[in-house]
């Protein structure tokens, strides 16, 4: 009996010779225990060394191997060939991002956006180490824990049509991280995040399609984070209008 095979239709982009992506078909041995990333590595090692893609940990932690699999944003280390076999698998770079080569996208725009939401704990004054840790109650930890699992894999950006239409949109992962630090009882920097969050390209650009939360491999739920930021920002705005002379805590 011949060895079973599977066909991968892979997007290729090779500048400067090619100015638009093309596709290349690879038929390789089918192994039910392989994930799509294993198949891509087989192609790279045994069939065509010129194929470029990013990967690192192979276990859903590093967030490097996100691609479009049959049009859905996925971590390729987490989708099995057996879920598609004997059908062909279409592998494309993450949507809504510029392509550098083949399946490698340019994420420098995202890294800029990540920086402006200041996703780190901001303190007015750091307490000296001699005074011990910043303690939190379980409730204080619950307030942000679910939103802190982001691995910056960008699947949420690939799934967000609003980001596709308007790439200036700060986008799901960065805003969710802003929310995560605003929610942290140790953080005192939410005032420094408001101008980014309360901007047309911040939370207000989001129209709650909700796909970011559907594709998130870490169940971060960026859609919920952004809507809750809208509620917080609206409350903050009302206070600043009604009490312009008072405290805007």
């Amino acid at each position: 009996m011949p060895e079973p095979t599977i066909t991968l239709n892979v997007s290729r982009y090779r500048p400067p010779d090619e100015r638009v992506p093309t596709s290349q078909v690879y038929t390789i041995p089918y192994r039910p225990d392989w994930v799509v990333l294993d198949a891509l590595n087989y192609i790279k090692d045994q069939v065509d060394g010129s194929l470029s893609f990013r990967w690192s940990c192979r276990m859903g932690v590093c967030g490097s191997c996100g691609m479009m699999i049959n049009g859905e944003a996925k971590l390729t280390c987490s989708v099995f060939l057996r879920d598609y076999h004997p059908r062909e698998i279409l592998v494309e770079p993450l949507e809504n991002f510029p392509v550098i080569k083949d399946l490698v996208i340019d994420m420098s725009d995202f890294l800029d956006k990540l920086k402006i939401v200041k996703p780190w704990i901001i303190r007015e004054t750091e307490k000296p180490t001699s005074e011990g840790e910043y303690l939190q109650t379980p409730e204080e930890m619950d307030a942000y824990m679910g939103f802190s699992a982001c691995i910056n894999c960008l699947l949420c950006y690939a799934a967000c049509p609003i980001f596709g239409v308007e790439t200036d949109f700060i986008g799901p992962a960065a805003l969710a991280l802003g929310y995560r630090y605003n929610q942290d009882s140790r953080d005192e920097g939410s005032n420094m995040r408001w101008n980014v969050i309360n901007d047309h390209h911040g939370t207000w650009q989001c129209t709650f399609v909700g796909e970011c939360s559907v594709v998130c491999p870490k169940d971060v739920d960026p859609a919920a984070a952004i809507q809750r930021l809208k509620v917080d920002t609206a409350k903050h705005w009302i206070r600043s209008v009604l009490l312009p002379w008072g405290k805007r805590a």
Partner: protein
Amino acid sequence: MIRPDKSLLYYPRMPATWWLRKWSYFLFIVREFSSLFIAAYLVLFLVQLYQLGNGAAAYSTFTNSLKSPGWIVFHAVVLVFAVYHSVTWFYTTSIVIPLRIGGKEIPRAAFTAINIAAWIAVSAVVFGLYLLQ
């Protein structure tokens, strides 16, 4: 940060018909457009109130025209969109403002169900008040 040479990048373009590519995107657009049907209904209702202000004759001419099959179909279609708005609105509310009981967020489906029950109760009250006037 090392940035790639922009002139060598391929920039994909999102077609204006992106909402036809996925069922969930399509349902999103339906949800957003439900607001247009609701607004159209409210404008028609405003015309009814305007005609009421013009006197009994103008009002009955208008309400008689609402009996035509065209307007019945219009109201039936708007009702479908309005109900879709209600259900999606209650579900999204459960995400935006989660309900906490005893410090724990209750499941979104449960909060949606509570809202739908409240919606049915409010509708019954409006219905009852209109019948009793």
